[in-house]
């Protein structure tokens, strides 16, 4: 990898947003993710190369560090800010088709539940891993999941619940999705959810943290390839 992409990787990993950002101290006074992305494009690196060799691997490393308890939510969110600063210059190439996305991921917190932190972290990490993410928000019932899936029939679906009382809604949503598209791959997660529960309601995967969502999606993609 070139030096400039190495630097971009480092900025995202440690949350160096731009040149004005004083954090992290070891990168103070240097360019950040914003400047390095612009420079990489100016030097002729393709947007896809920037994504595939710097941004996505950096966020993958952040996700791994989080799942290994080496960093915590604030550090992960700061990395996401640096990633977003880079994506400002990369996103226009998403719509032009110059960067091929891995697929579409529809995500929501199930009906009856208003907790959104876990869902937001998952959306952020999945997007950082190169997926288009459709965030349906909180208190999302079967109709809204199905409607979104009709618009994006090849999408994968993720759902979150933080209450034991709303966990059963996951099964209702899964059943509704299966009626429309039996092959849709579905990931469930949230504090009270377990792998056993996920299997019992017919989900295709359980994710205990955002990185596990990313890994499950990669598995699904390989299975479909």
């Amino acid at each position, binding site marked *: 990898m070139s030096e400039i992409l190495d630097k971009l990787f480092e900025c995202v990993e440690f949350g160096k947003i731009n040149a004005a950002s004083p954090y*992290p101290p070891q990168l103070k006074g240097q360019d950040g993710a914003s400047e390095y992305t612009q420079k990489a494009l100016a030097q002729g690196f393709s947007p896809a190369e920037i994504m595939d060799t710097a941004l996505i691997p950096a966020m993958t490393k952040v996700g791994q560090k989080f799942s290994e308890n080496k960093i915590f939510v604030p550090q992960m969110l700061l990395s996401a800010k640096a990633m977003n600063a880079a994506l400002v210059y990369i996103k226009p190439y998403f719509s032009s088709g110059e960067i091929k996305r891995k697929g579409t991921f529809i995500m929501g917190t199930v009906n*009856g539940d208003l907790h959104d932190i876990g869902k937001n972290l998952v959306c952020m990490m999945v997007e950082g891993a190169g997926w288009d993410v459709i965030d349906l928000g909180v208190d999302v019932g079967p109709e809204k999941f199905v409607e979104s899936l009709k618009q994006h029939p090849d999408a994968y679906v993720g759902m979150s619940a933080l209450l034991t009382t709303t966990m059963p809604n996951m099964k209702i949503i899964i059943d509704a999705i299966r009626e429309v598209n039996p092959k849709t791959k579905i990931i469930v997660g949230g504090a009270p959810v*377990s792998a056993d529960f996920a299997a019992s309601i017919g989900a295709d995967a359980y994710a205990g943290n955002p990185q596990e969502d990313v890994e499950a999606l990669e598995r699904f993609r390989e299975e479909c390839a």
Partner: protein
Amino acid sequence: MDQLADFLHLDDEQHPAWQFASDKLEEIRSLGLKAEGCYRFFPVEKLDIREGTVAFPQGVLSPRPQVCGYLRDSAQAALFLCTAGFYFTDESHAYNSRDEILEGYIVDAMGSCSVENAMDRIQQQLSREMEARGLHISNRYSPGYCNWPLADQKNLFALMEGQPTPVRLSESCLMAPIKSVSGIIGIGEKVKKREYGCAICNNSTCIYRRLVHK
């Protein structure tokens, strides 16, 4: 700030999250927000540890055997409600809607700390009142923790009908404002205050265990 930093696992004062949290705490203090809470006493008719139930003349709660064990020797119980209000959740959503997710997360965490701090004060006040009468109190226990089914919160709210706080319960047992707590404290001459929280809970997948013990 120290409590919030612990909650967020922040140990670097130079981290932008620390700086934001510090400034935001000052801002929130200037707003003069007040947490609201209350407790109501109920005589314990029967505490069935094996069945995991506690019966009052007005109704029955089912906190399950573990929590009932911690309420052992309670002659009465104080059921409580406490809320930090809507501010924290509204403010967190406002940050998130502007893609300021780090800030949104920190404000949400502030709400969690705020309601627990308020409940600490209420518990201390209750303890002083009871100690003055020669009685002791247990720790506080809430539906959703230590295997106490969240659904039993409906029975708790029924017992607290007419309570003066703005806390309301949804069909799915989600409290509004979200930054609220409810639960039970045992009271009696021989009641002991035991450890609380993750130390006594065996829910290994709970998000709070992850937050506190990562």
